[in-house]
């Protein structure tokens, strides 16, 4: 295999692995803020117990997120040197802002969040939790801005030619608010909230089924269900808006998402299907004219198809893109159905009576996580053959100094170490879930330190 495909595999593998964790951290951050806020408001110890419990799991996802995130940053330089030279000027300010406003905020307050329960007052601790949560939200902002710029470049001009060409920033705010960044940021944020909320739902559903931590779990489940229901519905709108943006800015990608070839035809929307690239056909269940209707709110307007693009400007992995996209949509719908049904049961006062429903929530943690992954695969594969849409091809973006053997070495290294890391994650997650929230009496409150913390908290 050549350097290009190896480097792409390595990047896809490391970024997909990385992306298991940040959404969970962002989502759990939101839930922790709500739980701790409830504790401060009601003074009921049960909320402190659940906040402390989820903080431990947050620490796990956050730690692995940081470790695997450094890999991503370094890979820009190691594997994609030409890309780095090309985009450095534009990404520079986004990265600087990410480092200073997001990472430092998160990691600074993380120490207090994890180890400071007995050292600072509840209020200072709450502020630290909010600091960490905001930090994680900001970090998503800058990385999504950078990625969106690759999808829909704006606020720059190109200097130099051929391999020497670079993009230089001309308008910072146009770069930040490039045509796709707001839609995609909201979509990513909500995907993260869902990932966190469904993890909380899953664990507490499990406790309820086992009859452990029952009162605490009921309260925590309701918090997470509220979050999940609201955002599962909201995701429908951000998703739709994103797709409208793709139709305008990246028509080739949109055509690939629905497997639409013929520009003169009305476009269908598939529920599921299979793309036959050679015969340019999709077999499956579709809503005739569905895509056309979603984009234009009528049934007659043709949608630009893949055939209208030169062969070397179309995404190649058409069936994979189609499948990833439809998987994401299907799982999104499943989340809406499940949370709406559960909310309806809650309203009837029968939320915790159906064991099958609780089992469904135990397993449903996979839905948002797989949907998040699938969405990114569709977005990134749909952008091909470009790394920066319309400007820089992926095949031109590599490191000239790196050989295939070196990438094979690092790929094996990452496969080994990430296997270990994933085993660690599952092991620790399971262990923390088995131990469960600490009972109220077991939470140590050191009076001396609380005295000191009282001064701190003002």
């Amino acid at each position, binding site marked *: 295999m050549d350097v290009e495909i190896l480097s792409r595999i390595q990047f896809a593998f490391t970024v997909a692995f990385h992306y298991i964790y940040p959404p969970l951290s962002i989502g759990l951050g939101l839930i922790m803020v709500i739980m701790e806020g409830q504790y401060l408001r009601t003074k009921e110890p049960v909320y402190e117990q659940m906040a402390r419990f989820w903080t431990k799991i947050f620490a796990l996802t956050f730690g692995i997120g940081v470790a695997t995130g450094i890999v991503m940053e370094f890979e820009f330089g190691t594997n994609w040197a030409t890309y780095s030279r090309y985009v450095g000027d534009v990404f520079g300010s986004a990265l*600087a802002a990410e480092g200073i406003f997001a990472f430092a905020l998160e990691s600074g307050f993380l120490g207090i969040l994890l180890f400071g329960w007995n050292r600072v007052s509840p209020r200072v601790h709450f502020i630290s939790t909010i600091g960490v949560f905001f930090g994680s939200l900001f970090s998503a902002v800058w990385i999504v801005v950078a990625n969106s710029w690759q999808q829909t470049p704006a606020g720059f001009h190109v200097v130099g030619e051929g391999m020497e060409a670079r993009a230089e*920033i001309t308008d910072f705010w146009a770069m930040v608010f490039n045509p796709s960044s707001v839609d995609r940021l909201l979509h990513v944020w909500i995907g993260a909230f869902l990932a966190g909320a469904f993890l909380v739902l899953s664990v507490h559903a499990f406790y309820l089924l086992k009859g452990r931590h029952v009162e605490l779990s009921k309260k925590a489940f309701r918090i997470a269900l509220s979050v999940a229901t609201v955002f599962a519905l909201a995701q429908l709108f951000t998703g739709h808006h994103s797709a409208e943006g793709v139709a305008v800015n990246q028509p080739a990608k949109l055509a690939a998402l629905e497997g639409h070839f013929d520009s003169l035809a009305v476009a269908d929307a598939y529920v599921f299907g299979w793309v036959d690239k050679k015969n340019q056909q999709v077999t499956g269940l579709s809503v005739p004219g569905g895509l056309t209707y979603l984009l234009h709110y009528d049934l007659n307007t043709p949608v630009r198809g893949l055939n209208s693009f030169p062969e070397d400007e179309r995404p190649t992995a058409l069936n994979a893109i189609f499948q990833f996209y439809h998987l994401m949509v299907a799982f999104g719908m499943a989340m809406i159905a499940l949370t709406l049904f559960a909310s309806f049961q809650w309203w009837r006062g029968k939320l915790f009576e159906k064991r099958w429903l609780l089992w469904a929530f135990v397993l449903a943690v996979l839905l948002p996580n797989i949907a998040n992954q699938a969405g990114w695969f569709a977005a990134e594969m749909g952008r091909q053959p470009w790394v920066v849409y319309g400007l820089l091809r992926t095949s031109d973006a590599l490191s000239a*100094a790196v050989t295939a053997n070196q990438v094979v070495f690092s790929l094996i290294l990452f496969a080994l170490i990430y296997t270990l890391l994933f085993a660690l994650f599952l092991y620790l997650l399971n262990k923390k879930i088995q131990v469960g929230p600490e009972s109220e009496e077991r939470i140590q409150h050191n009076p001396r330190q609380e005295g000191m913390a009282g001064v701190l908290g003002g």
Partner: protein
Amino acid sequence: MPTILGIDYPTLWFLVVGGLFSGYAILDGFDLGAGALHLFFRKEESRRIALNAIGPVWDGNEVWLVIGGGALFAGFPVMYATLFSGMYIPFMLFLAFLIFRAVSIEFRSKEKMKWWRQMWDVSYCVASATLAILLGVVLGNVLLGMEIGPGQEFEGNWVEFLNPYALLVGATTLGLFSTHGALYLLMKTEGRLYAKLTILARRAMIFFLVTFSLLTLYTLIYIPHLSDRFRSIQWLFSVPVLAFLSIANIPRLIAKHQYGRAFFFSGLTMALLLIVVAIELYPVLIISTVDKAYSITIYNAASSGKSMGIMLLIAAIGAPLVLSYTAFVFWTFRGKVKLDETSY
């Protein structure tokens, strides 16, 4: 090129990146150093205390690397691309050990079996020491220069990073980090572990002094381009003199059992040594050993003035924020380590 106070943007950003890497060395230096000494602690409780002394802060310390790397990418994308792709294997090993170390810290405390803890203690210690050495090796290669050809691409062989000079810089880094880590632990511990550390701090200091002396001799004899600026502009010579004074202060303060102050000077030493390096290199970042014309400098590697202006503004707003809450976190966890239910 626009300027602030007569200093052009690339130079300012060179200072920012230098400041971030100094901050990273001072902060992650002590937790890597503490890790490198880990197997010298024999008792289980000592090891736990040593781990918990860095527990609340090591993750935050590594963030300085993320930010430093980001700042380098942002300000000097060409440098970032050439260095990272040219040093592919050391950077990949660095990443692998970085993750391996984090895994070790987290895994160790989760089971009580003796072999389990011993296994993760060994991997934690080896990973910490290797990371210190790898940082030094990369720095050594930057000092020595690399085979950079047209298009600012690295043209050399991938094994070239393992040269004697770079390895010597690696050993020196390990020595300085270990000293720094021992001094940090001395501030955080008491009793038997403290007594043990007083001995370890001395030994680490001796190791550093030996490697550092060798390195200085090697540099002066074989790599004249790393000292010519100090020969030509004599008042600059005060900077290495300050660095030597700072180094000399460490054993003096260790002898007087003033470990907090000694820790300050081991940190200062890192900053001063990096300033010495910066003075010598400026405005070059990596000398090309193929042809000086291909050397990477802060000017031919820099982002545009517009981009740098935005980044400097962001840094000016952000830096006071970062410093204030970093100080707040360290202040919160000041004092000797007490194990409690949130500990490793």
